[in-house]
């Protein structure tokens, strides 16, 4: 079904992927150590949350882009995920925003 040429390209492709997987693994380990180390500094909550989130987003993006191959996925998948992210953000923040706009919050 596949020509030998195809199979050779294919193998080289996978080798390249494997190198990337190992690199990403090392990066994830490093970022994990970093995020734990920073938490030891006991920063004020807003700063702590921001930094922890940034690190988590970087780690998550590495897993999504390279382990889940999202970086080379098809447009349809991107479209579904873009829609999901939009609703995810709405769900994450609108209830809390509504709570803090309530009449019981003074001042």
């Amino acid at each position, binding site marked *: 079904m596949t020509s030998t040429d195809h199979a050779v390209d294919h193998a080289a492709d996978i080798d390249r992927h494997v190198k990337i997987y190992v690199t990403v693994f090392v990066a994830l380990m490093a970022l994990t150590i970093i995020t734990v180390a920073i938490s030891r500094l006991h920063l004020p909550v807003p700063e702590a949350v921001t930094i922890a989130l940034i690190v988590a987003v970087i780690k*998550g993006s590495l897993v999504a882009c390279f382990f889940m191959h999202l970086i080379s996925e098809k447009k349809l998948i991107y479209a579904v995920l873009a829609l999901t992210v939009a609703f995810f953000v709405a769900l994450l923040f609108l209830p809390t925003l509504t709570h803090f706009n309530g009449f019981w919050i003074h001042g």
Partner: protein
Amino acid sequence: MEIPYTVEVRRDTGLTNGKIGIWLFLASEVMLFGALFASYILIRTGSPTWPRGDSILNVPLATFNTIVLISSSVTMVMAWASLKRNRFGTFRIYLGSTVLLGGVFLVVKYFEYSHKFENGLFPSTNNFLALYFTLTGLHMLHVIGGMVVNAYFWGPGAKLWKTNPEWFANRVENSGLFWHFVDLVWIFLFPTLYLL
């Protein structure tokens, strides 16, 4: 009767049915965990006080677990890569390692939970613990689910490699996507619960 695009991709979308199916399912899972994170945000911001994660939970143990889960993600993707390289034996080693690492994760969680219970810390004790147990509990159910599917592909399901290697590789890839997602959720759960 055969369903088209189970194994070969449809030309205009470039995708197989299974690949679309698993991503749609993962989209729903994003909303599931999203609701729990939204609940965490609402409850925490509405609370006059909130304990630091490291004052109640065991950070070193959870860091270890994070490393375990990330490693299992690597072995998972290596399992799929082995199939694409036609190395069935290597595939089994990597997939087996993935399941084993998942088992390690569960064992650590067992110790974490039982330590909490022994010290009188239950979901009913306060909302921090309620969220902790519910979030990690639901995550744990997903770990178990992923392990069951992976164990199937390691064991009885591997027969498919002989008759339809391309289909088998696709199914392992899709199972891998689920497993990576479980890792992804933990990447956010860990700092949220343990470090903040």
